[in-house]
């Protein structure tokens, strides 16, 4: 089912793309037609695949680390109002700083290996996860909190057994965003300094005016992002269903 729907979407997407190319007369070196891109993808299949593998690994590690860090921060902010008040503006600050400015610092600390790309993916995911989850934790039904209080609840179990499950839908929302942003994070990391990965391949293709190869890598990246989002969504749906006390159906 999902495969079929995805296929239909793909067809629609390709049609829109092709029609845009026709109607606006965008030249192929700015926006190549789907056919040209497909040809470039086939010609460079093994090249793209080897670079894609590296990016995929960076994305997954970044997603895991960023989510973990985001959850931890959101929890800390919920638990200490002072921490929230002092730390949150700093967090906004780091987000409002364009990554390119931080990139040299990151590469200085993490080197040109995978470390700096994962760091970049983490940096990008971290904020939406933290922000969404914190909003969720802050919105716990006050009646349930009153109940916990009368039951003599301690802070940690109140967090783990009440606030956290109740905020799962918000976390799910944050994760859905993170799944989409993680690939971008890794690619930006690769632009900043890399010798492998889809981002590197894109830059290379762009520099050599091979727009079709660039778009081919880009499509692979975007498809990967969609697959990742589908996978994360199925976890997110389960989390929402759990919080509502329904058996998840898909």
């Amino acid at each position, binding site marked *: 089912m999902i495969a079929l729907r995805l296929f239909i979407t793909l067809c629609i997407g390709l049609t829109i793309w092709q029609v845009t190319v026709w109607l606006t007369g965008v030249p192929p070196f700015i926006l190549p037609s789907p056919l040209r891109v497909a040809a470039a993808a086939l010609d460079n299949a093994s090249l793209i695949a080897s670079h894609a593998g590296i990016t995929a690994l960076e994305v997954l590690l970044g997603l895991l680390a960023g989510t973990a860090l985001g959850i931890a921060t959101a929890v800390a902010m919920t638990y200490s109002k002072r921490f929230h008040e002092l730390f949150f503006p700093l967090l906004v600050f780091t987000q409002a700083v364009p990554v390119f400015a931080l990139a040299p610092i990151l590469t200085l600390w993490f080197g040109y290996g995978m470390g700096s790309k994962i760091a970049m993916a983490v940096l990008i995911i971290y904020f939406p996860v933290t922000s969404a989850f914190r909003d969720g934790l802050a919105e716990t039904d006050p009646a349930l909190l009153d109940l916990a209080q009368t039951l003599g609840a301690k802070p940690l179990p109140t967090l783990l057994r009440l606030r956290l499950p109740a905020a799962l839908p918000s976390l799910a929302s944050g994760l859905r965003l993170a799944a989409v942003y993680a690939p971008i994070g890794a690619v930006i990391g690769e632009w900043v*300094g890399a010798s492998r990965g889809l981002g590197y391949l894109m830059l290379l293709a762009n520099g050599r005016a091979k727009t079709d190869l660039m778009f081919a890598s880009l499509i692979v990246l975007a498809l990967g992002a969609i697959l990742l989002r589908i996978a994360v969504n199925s976890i997110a749906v389960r989390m929402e269903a759990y919080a509502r006390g329904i058996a998840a159906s898909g």
Partner: protein
Amino acid sequence: ADEMTVLLDWFVNPDHGPIIIAQEKGYFADAGLEVEVIAPADPSDPPKLVAAGKADLAISYQPQLHLQIHEGLPLKRVGTLVATPLNCLLVLKDGPIKSPADLAGKKIGFSVAGVEEAMLTAILENHGVAFDEIELVNVNWSLSPSLMSGQVDAVIGAFRNFELNQMNIEGVDGKCFYVEEEGLPPYDELIYVAKSDEIDADKITRFLRATELATQFIVNHPEESWEIFASTSPELQDELNERAWADTIPRFALRPAAFSAGRYSAFEAFLVDAGLAPTENPVDVIAVDVTKP
């Protein structure tokens, strides 16, 4: 006056001296031109936009032009801004790299992807180092910072008129291996490109004539021209730009419209040799002398 849109390769800097001076001194106006100058952040965009008919002229790099033509972009060189390579293989002056031969097993950073690989291959070959003995790392915009902080051992794509001054100001001196001295065919670093099938020879000739006047003025009045250039924008008034200005003056093409067919075909041959181009394009596909009647 005829309107004209010119896309720079990057933000305004001393490399663009002749255009800015021509604008400020009114040479464009005298030539009956009203020139709008636009600066992008990604140097690979302007040629594309010119090829798409979004501007009359773009400043680009000769090596890139060869590749772009092979990729089917309808572009042609119509003029020259900087007639020698600016590119250099930059290392730390007091570092362990005394010759490109010492680069075996080292990391080399680059920024604008394109022909770096071919250039490096040629330079390293001259020193008996194979290309796969080094690691090429894209460092995006931080060429000299990544070198100064020791993250890479050398960078290619640095401009000799800027990065050397910049490093000197930061207190870490650099050393340039000039690419044309290391076995690369000489080429024009900065050129004007136009859409190949819509070249308005008359307008472009007038434009180039104006920049020629400006170049002469710069060469004749280096101090005064710096004052004029710096006065156009407060961002430009600093030591680095002032020093770069002085270093750039001898690099400006004194005859912007002139071109040497031999140079272009030699570079084309070099790219074919390096495997970056499939077949040699004839020179008249790559460049044109717009003043030719």
